[in-house]
């Protein structure tokens, strides 16, 4: 979980950045299934773009404070519009999973439209718990390697 709340809540207790972060790290099969469900009764969706591309990742040097480019990360992104609701949705995930990005864009638009909000909120809660638990388990293993060095 990398999401810290920085803005107004857009669904439940989540601000827009938190919701997008949870969706981007959601389990792919689960988010795709949710998007299918959300599309029901949502209106026609037009795909503006659905492609892979490169995101340059800058990094801050700790020694002299110089920002430099670490390299490029392949990301999948999707942008859609829902003309009947005058809304757009956007999704982007690290990797090549175009369907994941598309599902994220659909859910992003649905959040803006407050369409199926309770279903989406339930999903966000479940995925957040899953992501936090996954990190917590990893970090308990990491903590087991904490070392107290002694010198003689």
């Amino acid at each position: 979980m990398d999401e810290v709340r920085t803005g107004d809540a857009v669904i439940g207790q989540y601000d827009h950045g938190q919701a997008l972060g949870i969706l981007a790290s959601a389990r792919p099969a689960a988010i795709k299934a949710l998007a299918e469900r959300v599309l029901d009764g949502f209106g026609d969706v037009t795909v503006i773009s659905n492609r892979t591309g490169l995101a340059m990742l800058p990094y801050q040097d700790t020694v002299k404070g110089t920002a430099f480019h670490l390299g490029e990360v392949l990301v999948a992104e999707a942008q859609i519009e829902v003309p009947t609701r005058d809304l757009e949705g956007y999704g982007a995930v690290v990797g090549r999973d175009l369907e994941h990005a598309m599902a994220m864009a659909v859910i992003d638009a649905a959040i803006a439209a407050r369409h199926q909000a309770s279903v989406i909120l339930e999903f966000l809660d479940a995925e957040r718990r899953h992501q936090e638990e996954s990190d917590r388990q990893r970090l308990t293993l990491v903590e087991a390697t904490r070392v107290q060095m002694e010198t003689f």
Partner: protein
Amino acid sequence: MAYVATRGGEQAIEHAERLFRSDLGTISRDRVDAVRKTMPYLVDRLMGEASLYEPDLAALALAQAGGDLYEAVLLLRAYRTTQPRIAFAQPVTQPDLFTVRRISAAFKDIPGGQILGPTLDYSHRLLQVGVLMGEDFTPEAVPPAAQPAPATQPSLIDWQKAQGIVLDHPVETVAPEDIPDLTREPLLFPVPRAHKLQSLARADTGGTLALGYATMRGYGDVHPTVNELRLAEAPVRLRHPRGTIFSAGRVRVSQAEIISKSKNLELGFSATFGWNEIKVIAAATLDIASSQPNPASAATEEFILYHTEPVESSGFCIHFKLPHYVTFQSALDAYRRVKADREAPASTAVEKELTQALQDDAP
């Protein structure tokens, strides 16, 4: 150097490629998945050198190249050129790093403590030959600690700056799209620090180690100690069209700060994609070494950055096996002419001596 096109041999060339590929056999999704899952450090090394983060593609490149790293780097760099750049992510800073390993060889008690993380540093290096006899080698499980480690760790250098141990340099505030970018601009010397660190991030691991090791052994004034070494996952934070910043996922990164005992506790830095400790330690050492007033010749920025670029160096090396018949024939002709020229006066001299001898012997 001059080149000419060659003709002929199309069938042999096609058959040679087929022979290479048939030796590798069918490349399946399962094989690629196996490479990705079983050799994450090799995949990491490749992504760092290719300067492109996508583990599936890196595993595919390795499978397709049969494990030839330079071929795999070339495949990934070539693939990269087919993709548009669609975003600049937000700069990664220390508080962003989901840290799984953080150690210091210079300071025993560091704020946040020392976390060994996944490492073979203190283990016996024994080949598990039993596996070849059919006995699986299954690692023992790690007993989890009661509490998780902190997800992020403070920057050690911030503590040192606060203590006045090392110089505090002001952080440069540059918009991501204005950061000098080697993929769009040539490497010109003296290099901006941003180009130097980017070039080291995508440098060849072996080349970086060779030059770093030379410096460590004494070809330079730097006596390195690892100030901090960190393995982590960094969020890739993108901007939504409505302006919201969000994390699109994480990528594995490694970084090293090296402190030199020789002069005013100077520090060097390096970071790269993937978990590749040797590369960042060697590269951070080269960062300090190349910043000295009169660096050793193999520790100058130009020497380091030109000779650790994996595609250019490997490409230049292997191009020597491609047809050079005309240039070589030309050199051979010149050699023969020189040889003939050298031999000509000698022959004349011999002839003169013989003539003189005959005249002397004449009755």
